[in-house]
């Protein structure tokens, strides 16, 4: 029994309490608690990760042998293995980076207070507890609890953040209820609640339980159709919160659960109907979300749709059910957490400078924010799957897993899935060309609605962005040695059919090509072009709207000119495909009918009572002998 497991959950929780007590007072001290707390938790988390390599007894924490605990005495509650270990360490690292970023990005009493850091620490504690849970009940407790600090963090955001927070909490709260339903199914079929049961999914009840747990994972990670909170939250919540939860730690938890149930809790047949269902949902998520991302005009909302789209790859990979696919899905999750939190952080930095998050009103920020620009380009290339960055490698693994599955099961499904995945990747690149152009390159917006120029990126912000962007490069080039060899393969097992891809060699060649390109560019005519503002008849017209084009305009073709897509977009805008909105409409519709029945007339009410009695009498008395 190791108390480190308890500490990694309890320490951030206690520190969260301390930060709460500080409240709005002593903001310096609150930041210190946040920084020291996440750093301490990271240290504890890494130690716990090491325990995973030890004996089973070392890797668990059991309840103490106290009399009043009765049958609960000596039950193992927390357990760490290779999978949860590295995820825990990663979650702690993200928390630390986010806090470092917040130290310089978050100012003023609104955010830089004990509540903010307290909620971050509480969310981290909940994430740690959920990752280390040894059984589904413990998992459900931490899983559900995590929604609360997250909800409170979202409520600290911009206008309309309460609506987004409410939506998020309802969907993740629903996911917790689904976990409970899954637990009920397991118990009713006489299974134990441990996470390591390897239960067969051949009968309907267990398939149902698997689907309940998967749906919970989908809601947390943002897989369709339970994704719709992510774009809303991404748009309105404070930037560090978006980078911390929906971009990294929520993905981590969701994909952890999906990988855990696929690997250890249940045994699913690769290519069976459960596996196919997951893969199809994954493929739909990839394409549908990225198509929505293409037409967005708000930077963070656009990134939010990508945060959904990328989950599709993870689900697709895990859905194959093969070791290669699961490893690829988990690796993609890790990569996604890195580059997407990096992208959100750069978005926050850009937004702070430009005073707005609307793509049409940004532009030319590369001069003011060189570090942000560089980090954004690297992360954008990584998410688009450009070799040799990390995003490429994990997508490559997912593609291979799909092909491998297709070769064993045959059929045509795998071809469709593969095409969807590759197509999605191309659209991702297309939409990030738009982002980089309209935010960092392009012309500066000088129109009438220009917001006052904000501050440049602070030191803490730059540190976090550079570390994450650096990780994109390192995890890409040394993928086999570092993330796969040290973190993922110990957890999933080593896949047999991983085709050779030599990242280091390829990197060398790519760098060579870039160098050649630069030489050609510099020798060419490019440097001789004169750049100037636009004039008409000697008057400076650069502030005229007609004189400036926004990259977003190029993408209007998709939403305006193509009839089929246009209709889909219009319906999507009306939330026809949003489970949350549909459910809400249904409830309101039923409620409207019921409300009409409650006329407020006493006679009606008395009539109901009598009618109720009559029905009871008819059912019971007349039915008896």
């Amino acid at each position: 029994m190791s108390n480190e497991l308890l500490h990694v959950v309890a320490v951030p929780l206690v520190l969260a309490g301390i930060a709460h007590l500080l409240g709005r007072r002593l903001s310096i001290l609150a930041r210190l608690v946040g920084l020291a707390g996440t750093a301490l938790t990271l240290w504890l988390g890494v130690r716990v990760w090491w325990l995973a390599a030890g004996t089973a007894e070392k890797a668990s924490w059991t309840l103490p042998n106290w009399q009043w605990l009765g049958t609960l005495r000596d039950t193992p509650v927390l357990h760490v293995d290779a999978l949860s270990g590295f995820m825990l360490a990663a979650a702690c690292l993200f928390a630390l980076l986010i806090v470092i970023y917040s130290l310089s990005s978050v100012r003023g009493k609104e955010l830089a207070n004990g509540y903010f850091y307290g909620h971050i620490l509480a969310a981290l504690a909940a994430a740690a507890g959920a990752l280390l849970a040894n059984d589904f009940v413990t998992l459900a407790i931490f899983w559900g609890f995590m929604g609360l600090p997250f909800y409170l963090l979202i409520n600290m955001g911009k206008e309309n953040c309460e609506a987004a927070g409410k939506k998020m909490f309802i969907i993740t709260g629903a996911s917790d209820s689904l976990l409970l339903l899954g637990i009920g199914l397991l118990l009713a079929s006489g299974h134990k609640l441990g996470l390591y049961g390897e239960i067969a999914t051949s009968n309907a009840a267990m398939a149902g339980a698997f689907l309940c747990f998967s749906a919970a994972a989908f809601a947390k990670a943002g897989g369709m159709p339970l994704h719709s909170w992510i774009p809303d939250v991404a748009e309105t919540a404070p930037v560090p919160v978006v980078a911390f939860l929906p971009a990294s730690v929520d993905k981590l938890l969701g994909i952890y659960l999906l990988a855990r149930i696929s690997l250890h809790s249940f045994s699913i047949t690769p290519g069976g109907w459960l596996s196919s269902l997951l893969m199809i949902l994954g493929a739909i998520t990839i394409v549908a979300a990225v198509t929505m991302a293409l037409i967005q005009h708000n930077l963070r909302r656009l990134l939010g749709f990508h945060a959904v789209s990328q989950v599709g790859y993870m689900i697709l990979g895990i859905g194959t059910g093969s070791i290669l696919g699961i490893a690829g899905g988990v690796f993609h999750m890790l990569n996604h957490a890195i580059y997407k939190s990096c992208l959100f952080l750069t978005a926050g930095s850009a937004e702070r400078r430009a005073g707005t998050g609307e793509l049409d009103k940004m532009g030319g920020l590369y001069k003011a924010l060189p570090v942000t620009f560089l980090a954004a380009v690297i992360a954008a290339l990584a998410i688009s799957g450009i070799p040799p960055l990390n995003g490429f490698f994990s997508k490559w693994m997912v593609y291979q897993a799909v092909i491998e599955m297709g070769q064993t099961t045959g059929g045509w499904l795998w071809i469709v899935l593969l095409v969807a995945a590759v197509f999605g990747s191309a659209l991702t690149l297309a939409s990030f060309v738009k982002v980089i152009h309209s935010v960092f390159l392009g012309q500066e917006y000088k129109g009438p609605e220009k917001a006052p120029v904000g501050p440049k990126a602070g030191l803490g912000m730059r540190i976090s962005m550079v570390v994450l962007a650096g990780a994109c490069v390192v995890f890409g080039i040394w993928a086999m040695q570092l993330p796969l060899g040290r973190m993922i393969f110990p957890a999933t097992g080593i896949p047999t059919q991983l085709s050779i891809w030599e990242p280091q060699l390829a990197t060398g060649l790519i760098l060579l090509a870039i160098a050649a390109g630069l030489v050609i560019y510099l020798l060419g005519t490019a440097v001789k072009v004169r750049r100037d503002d636009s004039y008409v008849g000697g008057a400076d017209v650069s502030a005229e709207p007609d004189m400036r084009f926004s990259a977003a305009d190029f993408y209007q073709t998709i939403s305006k000119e193509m009839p089929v897509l246009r209709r889909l977009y219009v319906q999507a805008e009306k939330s026809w495909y949003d489970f949350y909105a549909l459910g809400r409409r249904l409830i309101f519709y039923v409620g409207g009918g019921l409300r009409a029945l409650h006329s407020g007339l006493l006679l009606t009410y008395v009539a109901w009572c009598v009618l109720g009695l009559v029905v009871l009498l008819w059912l019971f008395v007349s039915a008896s002998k």
Partner: protein
Amino acid sequence: MKIDIQTILPLAIAIPLGMGFILPLLGKKLTRLADVAANLATASLVCLSIILLVGRLQGGGAEVYWMGGWRITAGGTVFGINLVLDGLSALMLVLVSVVSFASTLFSSRYMDQYTGRSKYYGLFMLMIAGMNGCVLTGDMFNLFVFLEIAAVSSYALVAFGCESDELEASFKYLILGCVASSFILLSIALLYAQFGALNMAQLGERMAELGVNKGSLLALMMLLAGLGVKAALVPFHAWLPDAHPSAPAPISAMLSGVLIKAIGVYAIIRVVFNVYGWTPELGMALMVLGTLSMIVGGVLAMRQGDFKRLLAYSSISQIGYVVLAIGLGTPLGILAGLFHLANHAIFKSLLFLTSGAVQYRTGTRQLDEMGGLAQKMPITGRTCLVGSMSIAGIPPFNGFFSKLLIIIACVAAGRWGFALCAVIISIVTLAYFLKVQKNAFYGKLKDKWAQVREVPLTMQCSMVLLAVLCVAMGLLLVPGLREAVLEPARDALYQGVKGYQEVVMTLLGSGG
């Protein structure tokens, strides 16, 4: 220390009943004295109920007390007024006392808005006496009497503000309550006519001997309908959404927190389990009524713009959960239902108190008119958040654990459909409580609330007390505490007619 239950058990009714007549004598001048006396009375009831709970555990079984030591047996029939303290009664007593204490603590400042405070406390105490009597009595007719004491004082308390809508609500409540009471009284008369006994244990015994016939089923159904009105089960619920919001907030807390349970749910389950005996058909009737209430209450709560009205509909929905789970008739189901009943008493009274706190400072109950109040009323905001999270079943608050048990119990009993309904309505519950949070406490602070302050200290204390209980009550599931509190209550029901009879009959001799 051995606790002599025989001596102190009648105090559970005597203290509030006595205070109910003493307090109105204090008149208009001595309002602070009335506050203090009422709070002392409820505090002493909290102590008493805990002593009784612990004392019953020491004794191991149930305790039967005969009022005044008077009992005659004529022709094999026992006459006399008896009080039975078993696990379930003890649990209910604690709940009633705790919520009453929180409500009187809250009342001391809240009732500054009203006049006639000593009358208010008098009615309040009578209501407690009615409820305590109801959960303790072992006699059908006394059940009716205590039930009426509680109900009549609650009619008056709902109308306490004397505004037109309050009077209208009270009138509706009164009429529907009277319809219910006549059902109940008629049913008791039918039972006495057939079996010649009113003592519950003896009634159960004779019913078991003679078997179920049309006459007893008729009586049972009338009782179910009558008590269904008191418990606000759909379709007998229509008075509740008017009555509960109209009462002063501490009374709303009492009504929703304990009254509908003590004189409604408790009476139903006591009769169904310990007098008639649970049968699958009866269980199904309870489950259907419960699920109907759960869905109708939950869906309608979504559409409410009035804070207290929303809470009232939510009470219907939550009572549905309780009745559904207990209707399953399995040990786990009963445990889950009783646990949810206890939890609901705490968090719903907390929520009504927070709604009262908001109304106290802003004067409105409309959610649309509020906004951003958490900034100005941090304690109210946070305790309301705790209450909302509890009722919505977010861990680690108590509601989560009872929701978990209810869902598991439904699935384990093979009632998939009911389990699914419970899951869906729990999501709906979360949705409308987040609406409360969003509209009332978060978002932009409206200009007109710029001067709003936090409520006075005693009101804060009362809310914090309940909020702490919301967090702590999850621990009731830890085996040590479960065996002391929830399992005896569960066993009291699960032992059925025969067990109840044996417990009561073997004790018939004692105390006499």
